[in-house]
């Protein structure tokens, strides 16, 4: 039962990934060629909603989590090169396969063999990073 809220949130997220077509290779290419507002609209309205939601959550609405803890926004670890270079490498892959990790999971649920291959690749890539971590600039 403790995990039910996470499961429902994941279910909603996976559903929206498909319904928004953010999981579509075609939409991602269209975005990188600036041929439609669709993906930019999703990104910008998502960030605006997230920002507003976090402010409302902290200041006005529910001051506690479901477990009764006070709300603390997790902070990203300090770093510079890891964010830039990591983002670059991820972006290079994204511009080819048109899938970022969220859509990979949702498309696997659709039974996509291509997405399954991407997931297998992503797990190997994650593994490679784990091996190379200490030799990379962060």
């Amino acid at each position: 039962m403790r995990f039910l809220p996470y499961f429902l949130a994941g279910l909603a997220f996976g559903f929206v990934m498909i319904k928004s077509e953010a999981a579509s290779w075609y939409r991602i290419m269209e975005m990188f060629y600036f041929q439609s507002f669709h993906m930019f609209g999703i990104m910008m309205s998502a960030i605006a909603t997230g920002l507003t939601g976090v402010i409302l959550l902290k200041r006005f609405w529910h001051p506690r989590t479901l477990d009764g803890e006070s709300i603390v926004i997790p902070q990203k670890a300090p770093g510079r090169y890891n964010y830039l270079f990591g983002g670059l490498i991820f972006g290079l892959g994204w511009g080819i396969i048109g899938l970022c990790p969220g859509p990979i999971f949702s498309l696997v649920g659709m039974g996509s063999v291509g997405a399954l291959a991407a997931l297998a690749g992503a797990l190997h890539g994650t593994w490679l990073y784990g091996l190379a971590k200490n030799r990379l600039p962060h």
Partner: protein
Amino acid sequence: MNTLLAWLHAPWPWYVSGPLIGAMVPLMLWIGNRSFGISNNLRHLCAIVQPRAVGVDFFQYNWREHSWSLVFAGGAVLGGFFAGVVFANPQPINLSIDALTMFSYWNVPIGGGFLPPVLFDFNWLSLLVMFGGGVMVGFGTRYASGCTSGHAITGLSTLQPQSLLAVFGIFAGGLFSAHVITPHLFSIFW
């Protein structure tokens, strides 16, 4: 009832789906002070399968403490099944005219609207491309400690400068490969 069903089958416009994605950030905070994101699960999955004898530091931690995240990813897989199979969109994807022109020039059929048939079909070359791209996605997201959800959505909506740097990298990388690599990729399939 019919309207609801039609709405569940149809794709959702950006002003519906964008706010729903953004709402994940306060939702995950409210549920349990979690940072909305999904790519950490790739690390947890590696940690689960890592044999004791191998022992790469990065995967030596108690992944059970992150079970909530794996449950979230499981939900996302099932959500994909519902949205893409149970409530599949019967119409072809509604791309812009510019994009349609470009894809016909690239010789890429539209197919089901998610992955081009050449990348979707079971053939070794396309699986190799998807796998290779996946390696970059997996390596990069762990190096940057997050993907589009963790950085572009969560990081930017909680005003974290590291995420802005990551998003800059992601977009620069994507622009490069989408313009320089991907258009030529399809010539090897035909």
